[in-house]
């Protein structure tokens, strides 16, 4: 089979498409003519849906930060353990909110008119980055165990040193361990998959990671 034949088959396909109305493109394009319909499509668009999800995460994150702020302000540093713990939880939430804001900016910057390898890599990176950047929230874990500490308890109650303190130390090691190990490089490990996500979400990040590798390979000149 020669190159010409491949083109001939394709041309035949082309002319058949001309003959038959394969898709209702005309009516869709006509529908798009009205601005209201465009808005409906906008809501349906996958990337816009992802931006909306990120926007909601930002809104909820801000509400949570404000709530924590009220708690810290209301306490007026009467119990420094409580204030510092809640402030740290606030800090990690702010970092996560920052990551979501960054994702919204990336989504808005994606221009489908750019080259395929560039756009597809950016889209795949967006999927893996959501996973990577939100793992920082694990670091707030130990601060949930210190928020109810107070000086008298630490000074006078041996139970503090026997129970509460070891729990906090345990949570600290656990938080650092999770932060360092829950990465896309470790997605092949069963415990990471079990802990982080199941089914489609896991597949989505893993496939995005593989696709980035595939794009890199595709871009490399082959001999």
């Amino acid at each position, binding site marked *: 089979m020669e190159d010409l034949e491949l083109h001939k088959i394709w041309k035949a*396909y082309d002319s*058949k498409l001309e003959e038959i109305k394969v898709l209702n493109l005309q009516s869709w394009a006509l529908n798009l003519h009205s601005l209201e319909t465009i808005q409906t499509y906008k809501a349906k668009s996958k990337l816009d849906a992802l931006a909306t999800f990120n926007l909601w995460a930002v809104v909820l994150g801000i509400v949570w930060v404000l709530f924590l702020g009220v708690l810290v302000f209301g306490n007026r540093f009467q119990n420094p353990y409580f204030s510092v713990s809640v402030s740290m939880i606030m800090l990690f939430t702010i970092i996560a909110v920052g990551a979501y804001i960054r994702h919204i900016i990336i989504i808005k910057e994606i221009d*489908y008119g750019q080259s*395929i*390898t560039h756009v597809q890599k950016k889209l795949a990176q967006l999927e893996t980055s959501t996973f990577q950047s939100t793992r920082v929230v694990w670091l707030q874990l130990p601060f949930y165990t210190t928020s109810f500490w107070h000086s008298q308890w630490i000074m006078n109650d041996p139970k503090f040193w026997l129970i509460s303190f070891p729990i906090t130390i345990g949570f600290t090691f656990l938080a650092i361990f999770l932060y360092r190990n829950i990465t896309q490089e470790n997605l092949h490990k069963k415990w990471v998959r079990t802990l982080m996500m199941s089914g489609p979400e896991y597949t989505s990040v893993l496939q995005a990671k593989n696709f980035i590798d595939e794009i890199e390979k595709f871009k490399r000149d082959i001999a």
Partner: protein
Amino acid sequence: MDTLTAREEFLRLILHNKGIIIKICNSYCPDKNDRDDLAQEIIYQLWKSGKNFDAGYSFTTWMYRIALNVAISHYRKGKQAGQLISFPEKPIDIADKRDGGDEMEEQTRLLQQFIHELKELDRALILLYLESKTYREIADILGITETNTATRISRIKDKLKQRFSMLNK
């Protein structure tokens, strides 16, 4: 691009080049119902990206970029959700037509099927080649070098020819 004239112009260009959208949808989306969604998404993205279109470039090259980018993303989403169905016996609507059975129709069906077996990026590459785009244009649309384009196309063509010759034996 929000004036009536701009919209009229957009509509004219889309309809004039609808073959591009149809062929890309067919190549990345074997399911007919799903194909409608993909075509809508492509038209929406074309409309949305209209403001970024540089009149100094070819409209069809820009259209290919957008349509292929949307189609690949759509295909990948389907793959992640496990919604992909296997390529049907008659992959394109034209195969459903009246006087079926002629050789060219069968070859068209097979070519579609073989293209569908390729990876997403290779599929884009061969589609553009079959659309008689130059290596330079293909390289520009995909964001790779011309040498890479030529080598990869040659390999895919060999693969396709091999598939056809295996069937003819």
